[in-house]
């Protein structure tokens, strides 16, 4: 069943106000901490590293008072696929992992199936990593409003304007995109309704009608693009009429200020990153 109204309510990382300490951090701190922790998660390939990181992330989620059930509910629809892929990886991986060479013993071999320690570690690590990243993105998006995120990104990119990277413009791109998602969603809904009222069925008519499905989808997408283009022409004129000059010399009404808690948080994250790298190079399992 095609739910026409759902298009209007596309939400990206719903903001959940619980008033915790993490909510009160500067958005720049949260962005930097997020990037560093993601880096740490990417680098960690040993069991001990990943378990430590997972515990840490769980502590942070508790600190932010975010409901665990809500975060995990995003995963439940895809659980069968995850399990199937994990099983495939476990059974067919075989060769040694490029990160930690040597010592991959074969645990079980039966016909074309082979389970090795490297494969086992890869599966467990990627599952843990997946959970880590899920919680980290929730930590970022559920504790920060989109406008705060945009403003924080722009602020972080400001020093890059010295080498010619237009930080303000990029943040503006993000702001326009977020602002227009519900508008274009309404537009798409209108297009779908108008085509349905003229008798175009929007249910997929089975997979083999590939060309027909494509054509039907293109009939939706092309008007959407043309509409977006028309809006963009209007916006260009509006911005020119207001003498928009870009980010040079632009000042803001509300300035972001870093406080003690922000520095403490960033310091803590830096320590964690260093710790992960150190553990990575010792021989802990």
């Amino acid at each position, binding site marked *: 069943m095609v739910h026409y109204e759902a298009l209007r309510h596309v939400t990206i990382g719903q903001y959940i106000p619980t008033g915790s300490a993490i909510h009160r951090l500067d958005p720049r701190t949260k962005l930097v901490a997020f990037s560093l922790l993601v880096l740490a998660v990417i680098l960690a390939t040993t069991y001990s590293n990943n378990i430590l990181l997972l515990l840490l992330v769980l502590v942070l989620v508790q600190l932010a008072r975010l409901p665990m059930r809500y975060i995990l509910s995003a995963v439940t629809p895809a659980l069968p696929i995850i399990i199937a892929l994990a099983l495939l990886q476990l059974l067919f991986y075989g060769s040694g992992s490029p990160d930690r060479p040597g010592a991959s013993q074969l645990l079980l071999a039966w016909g074309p199936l082979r389970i090795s320690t490297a494969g086992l570690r890869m599966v467990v690590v990627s599952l843990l990593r997946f959970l880590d990243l899920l919680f980290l993105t929730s930590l970022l998006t559920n504790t920060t409003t989109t406008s705060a995120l945009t403003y924080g990104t722009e602020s972080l990119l400001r020093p890059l304007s010295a080498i010619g990277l237009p930080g303000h413009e990029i943040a*503006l791109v993000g702001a326009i995109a977020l*602002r227009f998602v519900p508008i274009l969603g309404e537009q798409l809904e209108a297009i779908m309704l108008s085509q349905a009222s003229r008798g175009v069925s929007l249910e997929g008519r089975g997979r083999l009608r590939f060309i027909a499905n494509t054509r039907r989808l293109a009939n939706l*997408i092309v008007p959407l693009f043309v509409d977006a283009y028309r809006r963009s022409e209007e916006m260009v004129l509006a911005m020119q009429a207001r003498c928009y000059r870009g980010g040079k010399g632009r000042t803001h009404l509300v300035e972001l200020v870093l406080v003690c808690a922000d520095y403490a948080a960033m310091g803590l994250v830096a320590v964690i990153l260093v710790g992960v790298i150190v553990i990575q190079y010792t021989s802990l399992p």
Partner: protein
Amino acid sequence: MAEKVTVVSRRCPQCGTSLPPGPLAACPHCGADLKAVRPVEGSLPPGVKGREVLYERGIRRIITAGLLLAITLLLSFTRVGFIPVPTPAANATIVHIPAIIGGILEGSLVGLIVGLGFGFASFMNATIPMFKDPLVAVVPRLFIGVTAAWTFAALWRANKRILYTCLGVLMVLGILSGYELSKQEKFVWLGMNLGGFAVGLAVVVVVAIGTALLYVWIRREDVRIVAMAVAAVVGSLTNTVLVLGAAVLRGYIPAGVAWMIGLSHGIPEAIISVIVVVAVVAALRQIGRGRRGARL
């Protein structure tokens, strides 16, 4: 990125005599230096004299990137972005198409930004571990818009002869690879045993027919549309190849599975990209006979 440019109406600013057309270094009457003020190029409609253009290219790029990013996010987070295809791995995606269109319409920076947004949305939206890795979800997607932009920029003003030559080269490569394949003993693919010679012959036949059809199409169609189509194919293949390559390098899937997913997803996605991109960009830029309204 600020480009404040003023148009000089064809009068000398010092003595006021009207100047002959064409670029001039000095006024023929009073000798004033005219190089200080240069005529604007590009975005003004013809016949308009003396209008200050405020940062137009920059604004246009920002807004195009923003709106295409909004479409990308919309397609990512609703079911509209997928087309069911008769292959084992269920769905072909059209979410990379705004990145390609951004690259074609406004250049590689816009393509890069929309591709970054696509990668980020894919990363946020992912529920399988493979796409929760930024190196697989985000980094390869940066190049979709960039390669599409470069391909389009290279081809849209090309001679048709250059295109025919490229087509000829592809045909030769196709026949050679068919010949190589036919020399191998046999293939095991999808559980069937295929003779090497049969596969090679099939490839050669497909290449020959494909080349003939493409030749007829290129001859008949506007060069810009051909350029768009090629850019769309390149962009879509960049997405498929780089993402699957990153997945293999990071060790998520073995190479054989990657090839299978690549062939079964990549080819329908490329075909869909060509159809949609050509329809959209031709409608927006009013190119091609019979395409003034969108034609599929």
